[in-house]
C-alpha cells in the first residue's frame, strides 16, 4: 500500500528536523523550528495541490 501523503509528511519531517538542528543550537528551539518547517512544507504542498485543481484542464 502506498500513502503519498505519508511519504510527503515523512519527507517534510526529515528535512525540517535537519534544518532545525542546523539552524538552532537549543533543543527546544530546534524542535520548534523543525515543526514549523515541516508544517510549512506540508501546508504549501496541500495549497499548491488545491491551486492545481482549479487550473487543471
Amino acid at each position: 500500500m502506498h500513502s503519498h501523503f505519508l511519504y510527503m509528511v515523512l519527507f517534510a519531517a526529515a528535512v525540517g528536523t535537519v534544518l532545525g538542528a542546523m539552524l538552532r543550537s537549543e533543543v527546544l528551539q530546534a524542535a520548534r523550528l523543525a515543526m514549523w518547517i515541516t508544517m510549512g512544507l506540508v501546508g504549501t504542498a496541500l495549497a499548491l495541490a488545491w491551486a492545481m485543481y482549479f487550473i487543471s484542464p
Partner: protein
Amino acid sequence: MNSSDFSAHTPAPEPPPVADDGTPEPASAADSLRVLVSCVLAWAIPGLGHIASGRVGRGISFALIVLSLFFGGILLHGKVYRPEPGEPLTYLAAVGAAGVGLPYVIAQKAGWNLGDIRSQSYEYGNTFTLVAGLLNLLIVLDAYDVATGRR
C-alpha cells in the same frame, strides 16, 4: 543534559584564536588538517564529522535521518542518480545524490541505483535519495563551521 548538542557529554566549541589586536590568527597546519578530516568524514558517513568534533548527539541524529532518507528512497524503488551521457541534468542530480558519501558508492556498486519506474513510489524514492545527498552537503558545511569553532 547539555541542550546545545542533543547529548550528555558535549564539550562547548572553542572560539577561534585571536591575536592581541583582536584579529583572527591564521590556522595552523594541524588545525587545517583537523578541519579537512572533519569535513571528509562528514561527507563519507553522514553525521560522522559532528561526532568527530564532539557533537555526538547531533551527529547521530543527522546520521539516522540522512541514512533513513537515502535507503528509504531505495526501498521506495527510487533510483540513485548517476551521470548519463546526453542528459546534462543527470550530472547535476548525480552531484547532489553523491553528497550522501559512501552510501552512494555502495548503492552504485551493489546495483541498487536503478529504481523501478513502474512503482507508484518511484518519484518519491528519487526525491528521497537526491535530497538525502543535498542535506548531507549542508551538514558538511555545518561540520566545517563546528570544526572551525564558528558554532
